């Protein structure tokens, strides 16, 4: 039977774990998106081959290796290269690095899909480059890119559990502690599964709302 009394003891730790998971996801996703966007911009505008080659290599390397391995390289291998990070900063940096190439590819494809004539119209009027990006390219790009951005953000929620392997006290770490101390596998894993389900559901609802906002002009009826 499910023993609810366990949650009196472990409730606070689990709640802190939930908070930590949401925090790690939010920070990791925002930074990964930001880095990915910058990568996509550089890839568009800096045509020098060493830069292109480096970006390509970075994308292929990160996409070609498991997140757990990257995290171990960063956290355990880092100190040997002079990069000594605590678990949490290492985890956040890891998520940023892991997510950035995927986001970069989404942004790259999205920006390439902006009709060139719409950009030319702004250039011909004398728009500064920043205004072209903010007012024309990003809104038009989001129409096609939003579903993929939301999708990968959801994938990242589930990658956060890997941070438990380097002792970041997120929800997976806390449930494992609970299981190790009580052997209450059913209670602990049920909480874990339920949480992620609700978490992801919330994100996809927000995502759908953003999509509706970005594409409202395609849906409006006269």
């Amino acid at each position: 039977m499910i023993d609810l009394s366990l949650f009196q003891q472990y409730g606070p730790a689990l709640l802190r774990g939930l908070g930590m998971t949401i925090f790690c996801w939010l920070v990791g996703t925002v930074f990964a998106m930001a880095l990915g966007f910058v990568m996509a911009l550089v890839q568009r505008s800096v045509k020098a081959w060493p830069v292109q080659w480096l970006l390509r290599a970075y994308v292929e390397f990160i996409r070609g290796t498991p997140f757990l391995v990257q995290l171990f390289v960063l956290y355990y291998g880092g100190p040997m290269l002079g990069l000594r990070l605590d678990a949490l900063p290492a985890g956040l940096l890891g998520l940023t690095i892991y997510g950035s190439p995927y986001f970069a590819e989404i942004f790259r494809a999205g920006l390439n899909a902006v009709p060139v004539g719409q950009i030319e119209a702004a250039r011909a009027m004398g728009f500064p480059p920043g205004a072209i990006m903010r007012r024309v390219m990003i809104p038009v790009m989001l129409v096609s890119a939003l579903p993929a951005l939301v999708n990968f953000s959801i994938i990242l929620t589930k990658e956060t559990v890997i941070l438990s392997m380097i002792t970041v006290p997120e929800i997976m770490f806390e449930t494992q502690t609970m299981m190790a101390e009580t052997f209450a596998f059913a209670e602990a894993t049920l909480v874990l599964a339920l949480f992620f389900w609700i978490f992801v559901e919330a994100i996809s609802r927000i995502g759908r709302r953003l999509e509706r906002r970005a594409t409202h002009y395609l849906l409006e009826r006269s």
Partner: protein
Amino acid sequence: MALTTTTNAASARLENVSKFYGEFQALKDVSLAIPPGKVTCLIGPSGSGKSTLLRCINFLEEYDRGGIWIDDRLIGYDAVGGRKMAPGRLREMRRDIGMVFQQFNLWPHMTALQNVAEGLERVKRLPRAQAQRIAAEALAKVGLGDKTGNHPSRLSGGQQQRVAIARAIAMQPRIMLFDEPTSALDPELVGEVLAVMKQLAAEGMTMVVVTHEMGFAAHVADRVAFMERGELVAAGTPAEIFGNPADARVRAFLQSYNDRNAFDVKAG
């Protein structure tokens, strides 16, 4: 409001303009004077370089040799030293040059009003309320005063092109470039766009129009330039070009145009 009449129309001067795509020479030493306050039509077969030449005038297309002056300012390159012009100075010159594209190129996420107001806000740095007031005026001028809240997806092709013209004139350009403005339109929508262009011409706007509408070129243009294979073959008044063209290539082009558009009923 200065949206009504053009008082300070610019002239343009093209001298020996050449453009290469690798080995291929798209423009061959084209020289053409564009008088202020007049309509100059560029005609000729597809691929003759008309659009390329037009796009060189605001440097959307970079020419490689020769020079293009708007009034007496060289565009695209520094007058001294011949280096590529600083982006800020090019932007400043482009403010005076309106452009209308074959595919309209409106911004789909903005209403008609915002499409027109956007340049006033971002380029001329007008406050939003003032930009929207001028935008509404420009839309009214092209006969779309009742469509300000529509997104481009809710407008016909002719209406979209008129919004695009309003977007250009709201910036109070001193010269306007039209790149086949009616070529993407259904035949029954061509008239409304040409009517707006005629109105602009009557107000004394300097206009350069790449067009396949020979009727418009014949009736509205002050000067007609005929291009073929990247060369300017002939330039003159409509009467000179359409009446009795001296050049055989112009004659052949017009002959084939007439054959396609003749109303002769098949005999028998």
